[in-house]
């Protein structure tokens, strides 16, 4: 007998496993309060906003849905649950997952709010009830904590995501997550470990760094690993870290190939699909590694064919934009930008960061990770981000930069002006700062942003035409 969700799941790359996984799917959708009408709406939303003609895209959507099911059912399936925050220091989540597997412990490790964005938002277009639940449970709108925290809070308040056994909370880059985790700790009583760090860095220091910063962050990460051992009985070792690297290599290699293909002219696929792949690696330590590599590899093969055939989703010669504005939850915003004729092809990840020192002189896992974070991570300092934008613009021959910020997000609001000024002064390329919310588009819809993006596109086209003449 057909299920009410068959058509959507097939659209999202599911095949035989619908029958096999039926009890899990039924249970997960029940918890998520997603019924037949939601499936119909999702079919339309996915068809309109994702390039489902491509098998790789369908497989990516499948990986996200499987991750959603794993998240929602983790506790019921007897797993310990660990959440980390976004933006996160790359690695600890993967290492905890790898160490758990080595110790044969069932542990689910992920960033739940970004999973809800990419599934309830990007697939079901039904994130608003979760945001509203977050607002009604201690994080009202306008109170200065970003909507990503409202989503996590709302997910817990509605009982659609399990209360975790441990939260690793980092104020290394942004202190909103750790502040929200204090509230959630008060509400739900779960254990939280706070990973402090120092973003303070002398302007112009990057890629150098003060050793004290590594010492401090390294000690914080070691404390995190000790707490993981205490709470989960899992020892996070260098071997576990190496294994995590090895497991993730295939996925991140494919991601690298995809970002390189996006430099083709015309841009072969929408940045929406690239973001689906990139963020899977940031949010998931499970399906990203088991389903992700195949999905991204298939997508790369399909994109390669489009590049060879000269097929694109924007016109050949369209202005190429370095994009820091991909919405996690609402793909229609990126499509609006691309519909103005911009090739939103590049991200900071399109240009590799400096290499970490090898061999390292540090000895503990925390210190080694902290050193890596200083050299290859996104969050060395505000200057490092400005510098990496400059490098990417120069390396990739970019025509413009779109930065997005939320008024109450301290790191991005400050950087919106710093990066714009820096990029324009060092490269001569125009940049625009768009006030928007990449997690919650209720107040920042595509229609509200259209005039500014269109004007920016017209400006870039005029500059290109003048340069050509």
């Amino acid at each position, binding site marked *: 007998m057909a299920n009410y969700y068959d058509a959507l799941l097939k659209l999202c790359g599911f095949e035989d496993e619908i029958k096999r996984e039926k009890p899990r799917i039924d249970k997960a959708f029940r918890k998520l309060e997603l019924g037949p009408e939601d499936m119909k709406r999702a079919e339309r939303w996915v068809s309109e906003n994702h390039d489902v003609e491509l098998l790789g895209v369908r497989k990516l959507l499948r990986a996200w849905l499987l991750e959603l099911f794993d998240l929602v059912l983790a506790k019921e399936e007897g797993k310990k649950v660990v959440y980390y925050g976004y933006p996160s220091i790359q690695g600890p989540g993967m290492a905890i997952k790898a160490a758990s597997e080595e110790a044969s412990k069932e542990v689910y490790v992920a960033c739940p709010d970004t999973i809800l964005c990419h599934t309830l938002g990007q697939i079901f277009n039904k994130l608003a009830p979760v945001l509203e639940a977050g607002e009604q449970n201690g994080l009202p709108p306008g109170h200065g904590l970003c909507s990503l925290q409202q989503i996590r809070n709302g997910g817990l308040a509605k009982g659609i995501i399990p209360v975790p056994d441990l939260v690793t909370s980092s104020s290394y880059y942004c202190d909103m997550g750790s502040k929200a985790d204090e509230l959630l700790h008060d509400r739900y009583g779960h254990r939280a470990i706070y990973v402090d760090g120092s973003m303070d860095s002398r302007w112009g220091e990057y890629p150098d760094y003060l050793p004290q910063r590594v010492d401090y962050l390294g000690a914080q990460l070691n404390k995190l690993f000790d707490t993981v051992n205490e709470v989960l009985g899992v020892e996070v070792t260098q071997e576990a870290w190496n294994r995590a690297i090895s497991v993730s290599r295939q996925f991140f290699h494919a991601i690298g190939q995809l970002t390189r293909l996006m430099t083709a002219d015309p841009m072969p696929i929408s940045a929406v699909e690239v973001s689906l792949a990139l963020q899977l690696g940031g949010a998931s330590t499970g399906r990203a590694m088991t389903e992700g590599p195949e999905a991204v590899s298939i997508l790369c093969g399909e994109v390669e064919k489009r590049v060879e055939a000269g097929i694109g989703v924007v016109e050949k010669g369209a202005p190429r934009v370095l994009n820091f504005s991909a919405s996690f939850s609402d793909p229609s915003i990126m499509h609006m930008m691309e519909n103005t004729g911009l090739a939103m092809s590049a991200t900071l990840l399109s240009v590799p960061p400096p290499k970490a020192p090898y061999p390292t002189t540090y000895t503990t896992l925390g210190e080694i990770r902290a050193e890596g974070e200083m050299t290859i991570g996104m969050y060395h300092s505000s200057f490092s981000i400005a510098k990496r934008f400059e490098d990417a613009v120069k390396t990739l021959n970019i025509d413009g930069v779109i930065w997005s910020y939320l008024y109450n997000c301290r790191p991005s609001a400050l950087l919106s002006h710093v990066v714009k000024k820096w990029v*324009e002064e060092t490269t001569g390329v125009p940049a625009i700062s768009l006030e928007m919310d990449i997690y919650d588009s209720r107040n920042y819809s595509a229609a509200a942003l259209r005039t500014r993006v269109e004007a920016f596109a017209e400006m870039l086209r005029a500059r290109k035409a003048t340069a050509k003449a």
Partner: protein
Amino acid sequence: MIVAGVDIGAATAKAVILDGDELLAFSIIPTGFSVARAAEAVTEDALAKSRLSMGNVEYIISTGYGRRAVRFSNKVLTEIICHAAGVSSVLPQAGTVIDIGGQDSKVIGLDGNGKVRDFVMNDKCAAGTGRFLEVMAGVLGVAISEAGALSLLSREPCSISSTCTVFAESEMVSLRAEGKSREDILAGIHKAMAHRIAIMGQSVGFRREVVFTGGVAKNVGMKKALEDEIGLEILVPEEPQIMGALGAAILAKAELVKMHQAS
């Protein structure tokens, strides 16, 4: 070579008819409920003034918030690009445009060739817009057309702490209860709004010559407040409201020339 530019703003619809470089006529009407109807009406009115009909127009560019609702236009462009072209045509030395319309405000940096160098706009909230001034003038019982001149009579402008339309309205009531004069309150409103525009435009920078456009540019009090705030003299074109439509018409002419050259 007859071309038209049609600028459908939130408050008013404007149309300009050009024959080559010569401005034949323009029209300004309230936008009203039907954006599409306003576009037709304002274009027909400008054409009637030019003693022409739609059949005579070879190319039309529409702009403004209602630009996509202009069914008869050949091309759609944003008002930012069109304002830059319009202002540069009448004041080629312009380096910056401050445009305050009915429901948004923007600062546009020009590159000296009629093109946009940079821009910033506030289109999310009524504060800093013509609508804000209208509401405040209404609260004070002053006709909007008189608000500017009246504010210049102020001896001690009030300090207005909020530029949110709703909260500022209640602030007005308090100031009136304190016995503050209309002149001082109006001057305070202009000062608060000018401060907001100046902060918004900082990232673009105010380069000479600074040109003030949009309906609010007719307000002499607002012009003075902006000059005080940015420390530069401000020029106002003879018809500041039609700069977007004029720019659209000029760009329409350029498109037509390009098409003729191509064929």
